[in-house]
């Protein structure tokens, strides 16, 4: 045995030492694993502390250690720390192995003896494995300074502006004709009641005119290849049928277009738009798009009113979808949320009972630029409600739909209560499960709404119905609810019901996740690298997330995440290059028989066949290190660094305590 192995067992305060007898593990390793090359085994309170690291560095230098095993937490937390320590002491960082005895032992088991025994096995596996480790060099690749941001809501806009202001180029891709996202549909924002458009529009304009930002609206990402620093992205720019070079955004085409269409997106189905349209007056960019499905010309072959009246000849019926190919170094996904479809909660009556509205519908109703010019009226478009019920948690905190809390609905419900009260003087009831008004100035707003005389009923609404039981209920919507504070069943007749619907992941969030190689939680929100310490990074290097795509959140949090993600991207850009894990596969050409079994296995096209030599080759720049071909090669001609056969077999044997000097 030529290797000299040092084993370091961490107490992690009481996190490990509370369940695992760390002293016993260290002594055992020194005694029983000596034959495998362990010459020193120590235990220490916090291995990751600078003193702990120094301990390792000192031993490497003084005892001539050639391999290090640290039995501590998950390698995903501190592998890097100890690799750097080894490097500082002149040892190749890849000769360090972490044995996870916290996440995999002390935190998940309770019996001290059993946990200690398992910790020994895990250490034994790591020692066996580390002996087979090879000295590796990091793979350095340059970072392309351009950034792709997907989603032009407030989170995406914020991120784009931060990066652009720092002097780097951003491609901002938005599926809709204009950037602005959900925030552009709102009237007021809680708790300050700022006008949403007033604070958003300047940001949109800034993003639209920034020299470092290329806006790609009415566009979607269709393909992503490559890796951190070197992504290649294909974007489908849908035909607008309006030449952006020529269009001045004067709006005459919209005015002249004879075709009215219900606007399901921006107006939430409450208002109309034309077949050629910009979704709203402050749209950025303000070039209209033509809705091919509804345009009379595309349906019947005649009309072309827009073309006739366009002063600059910008209408182009022959325009086609365009595929744009971009090289970018990093990606921020700020794809936002979908509103929970309240029709799913059938007992709340949305879609059946005309005067049940969703939150987004109400936002449009109360918006001065909306279909009713801000008049809060019933579905008949005329009558003002005298009483309004606002139901919280619709589709949220409900195991029939979504278990999670949608975060914004309470404050949204309070905002609605205030607006209804202010504009109509109606009696307002709020039906809530729990009132959640965390964050700055939120609870004060709740107090204010309370003082305005809004009535609050704590209870989950059982039913909204128009089946009256008595005269008082005739012609009303009756809200049947258990008032859990008064322990009473109540039937409250109102004129209007507003459902504070929850937020949901985008319908296609799983597909988008797959496209960019990141995962989604079981609910469908993008999964962050660490829920507390790394909320905007993902498991895939170079892909970041911001805003509601990561989980329900309000505007300030979305903006903060947009900024945070951009800071992470700038960090990468400024480093100019990124070190990749040297986990790669390679083919031994002498052993390769050219059977071509592996040729169909690589989704990254790293494997190619050299016809002349009749052997297979792996391109290390394209290889992502999954190891599938290594496992597949029938001749054993492909080997993989970092996770070699020798390492894994040794670890199996070690974990099974093979060849142990037993007492």
């Amino acid at each position: 045995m030529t290797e000299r192995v040092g084993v370091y067992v961490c107490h992690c305060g009481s996190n490990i030492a509370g369940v695992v007898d760390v002293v016993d593990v260290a002594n055992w390793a020194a005694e029983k694993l000596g034959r495998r090359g362990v010459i020193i085994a120590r235990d220490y309170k916090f291995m990751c502390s600078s003193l702990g690291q120094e301990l390792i560095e000192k031993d490497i230098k003084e005892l001539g250690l050639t391999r290090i095993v640290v039995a501590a937490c998950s390698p995903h937390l501190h592998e890097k720390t100890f690799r750097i320590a080894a490097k500082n002491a002149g040892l190749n960082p890849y000769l360090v192995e972490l044995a996870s005895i916290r996440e995999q032992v002390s935190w998940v088991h309770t019996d001290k003896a059993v946990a200690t025994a398992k910790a020994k096995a895990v250490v034994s596996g790591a020692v066996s494995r580390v002996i087979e480790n090879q000295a590796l060099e990091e793979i350095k690749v340059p970072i392309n300074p351009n950034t792709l941001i997907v989603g032009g809501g407030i989170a995406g806009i914020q991120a784009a502006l931060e990066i652009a202001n720092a002097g780097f180029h951003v491609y901002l891709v938005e599926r809709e004709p204009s950037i602005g996202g959900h925030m552009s549909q709102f009237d007021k924002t809680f708790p300050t009641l700022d006008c949403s458009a007033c604070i958003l529009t300047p940001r949109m304009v800034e993003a639209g005119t920034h020299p470092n930002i290329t806006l790609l609206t009415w566009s979607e990402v269709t393909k992503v290849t490559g890796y951190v620093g070197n992504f290649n992205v294909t974007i489908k720019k849908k035909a607008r049928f309006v030449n952006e070079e020529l269009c001045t955004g004067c709006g005459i085409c919209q005015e002249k277009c004879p075709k009215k269409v219900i606007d399901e997106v921006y107006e939430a189905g409450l208002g109309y738009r034309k077949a050629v349209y910009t979704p709203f007056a402050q749209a950025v960019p303000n070039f209209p798009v033509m809705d091919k499905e509804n345009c009379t010309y595309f349906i019947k072959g005649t009309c072309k009113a827009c073309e006739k009246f366009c002063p600059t000849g910008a209408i182009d019926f022959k325009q086609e979808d365009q595929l744009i190919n971009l090289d970018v170094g990093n990606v921020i996904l700020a794809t936002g949320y979908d509103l929970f479809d309240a029709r799913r909660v059938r007992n709340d009556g949305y879609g059946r009972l005309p005067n049940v509205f969703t939150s987004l519908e109400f936002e449009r109703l109360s918006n001065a630029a909306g279909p009713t010019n801000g008049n809060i009226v019933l579905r008949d478009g005329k009558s003002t409600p005298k009483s309004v019920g606002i139901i919280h948690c619709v589709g949220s905190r409900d195991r029939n739909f979504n278990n999670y809390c949608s975060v914004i609905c309470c404050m949204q419900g309070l905002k609605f209560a205030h607006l209804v009260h202010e504009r109509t003087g109606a009696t307002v009831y709020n039906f809530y499960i729990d009132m959640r008004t965390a964050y700055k100035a939120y609870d004060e707003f709740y107090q204010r709404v309370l003082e305005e005389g809004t009535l609050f009923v704590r209870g989950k609404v059982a039913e909204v119905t128009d089946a009256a039981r008595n005269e008082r209920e005739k012609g009303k919507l009756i809200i049947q609810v258990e008032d859990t504070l008064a322990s009473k069943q109540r039937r409250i007749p109102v004129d209007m019901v507003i459902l504070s619907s929850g937020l949901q992941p985008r319908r296609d969030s799983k597909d988008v996740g797959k496209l960019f190689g990141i995962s989604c939680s079981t609910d469908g929100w993008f999964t962050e690298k660490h829920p507390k310490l790394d909320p905007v990074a993902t498991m895939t290097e170079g892909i970041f997330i911001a805003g509601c795509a990561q989980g329900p959140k309000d505007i300030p949090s979305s903006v903060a995440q947009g900024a945070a993600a951009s800071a992470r991207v700038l960090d990468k850009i400024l480093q100019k290059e990124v070190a990749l894990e040297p986990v790669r596969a390679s083919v031994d050409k002498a052993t390769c028989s050219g059977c071509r079994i592996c040729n169909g296995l690589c989704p990254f096209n790293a494997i190619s066949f050299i016809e002349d030599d009749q052997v297979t080759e792996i391109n290390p720049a394209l290889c992502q290190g999954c190891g599938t071909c290594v496992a597949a090669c029938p001749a054993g001609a492909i080997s993989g660094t970092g996770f070699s056969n020798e390492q894994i077999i040794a670890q199996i044997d070690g974990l099974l305590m093979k060849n142990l000097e037993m007492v």
Partner: protein
Amino acid sequence: MKPKFAMYWAASCGGCEIAVLNTHEKILDVDANFDVVFWPVAMDAKYKDVEAMEDGSILLTLFNGSIRNDENEHIAKLLRQKSKILVAFGSCACEGCIPGLANLSPVGDIVHTAFNTLTTDNPHQIYPRTSFDVPEGELHIPKLEKVLRPLDHVVDVDYYMPGCPPESHQIAAVIDLVIKVVKGEAELPPKGATIGVGNSTVCDECPRARNVKTIREFKRIQDIAPVDPNLCLLEQGIPCNGPATCSGCNARCPNAGAQCIGCYGPAQGVMDYGARLITAFSSVIDATEPQEIERILDGIPDPIGQVYRFNLAGSLLKANRNAFKS
């Protein structure tokens, strides 16, 4: 004095011995350069003569056949003791070969099958026993062991020469090499090496054209008509073991229109031959749904026979669980 040569035939069919004969005039070189001291199939010899030899006095022993009974084991240990170079010669000695498939059954079943099936006329239910008293004294026949073992499970082996049997041209080349070593004209390969083989797998020597493979159905070769003579057999859905089988035979079977069945064993450095074939066959399956994958796998009706025909005893698992338990 000429260096000494021995060859032994343990649990095997004898094909290896024929393969040596099949080297034609090369066999005369053996006689010319060696003093053949023990070769039961070719000359009369007694175990006690071998036992009397000095340890390490035989330069080269070619041991063919695997270890099925205690006699095999005894001679393996004896020859190890007396030989400088012990070669596991042929698939049986290297990895168990066809006799190794007996490891799928408990030894009792094997004996029972041999002595008591419909085709065996054994009206008195006579079964062999290991020792038997007769007026002349006690008679012994070798005792069968639970499982069959390759040579290196019993003794330390210097070189492996696989094949069922090893190709005669490879035997000739090895004989030439050893003669050169004796004359000081060449050096021996490192201990533990596989000799008389190529350094890749059968595909390396196979002339058939190969493409990226996607299989939606595995078929037996007799169920395909006609078999494309120029195209990779696996691509035609025939489970050919060539991709995982050590080269050295000049792709004899695929050249003759039949799939490789794997007699040359795994490529060098491979730990388990069957695992290589499992991964090779499953890699080319073109399906993602479990039911569809299972349907395609039904095309390999005898998975063990397919992936371990020559290798069962030498594989990681060595034998069926019932054989161990017997």
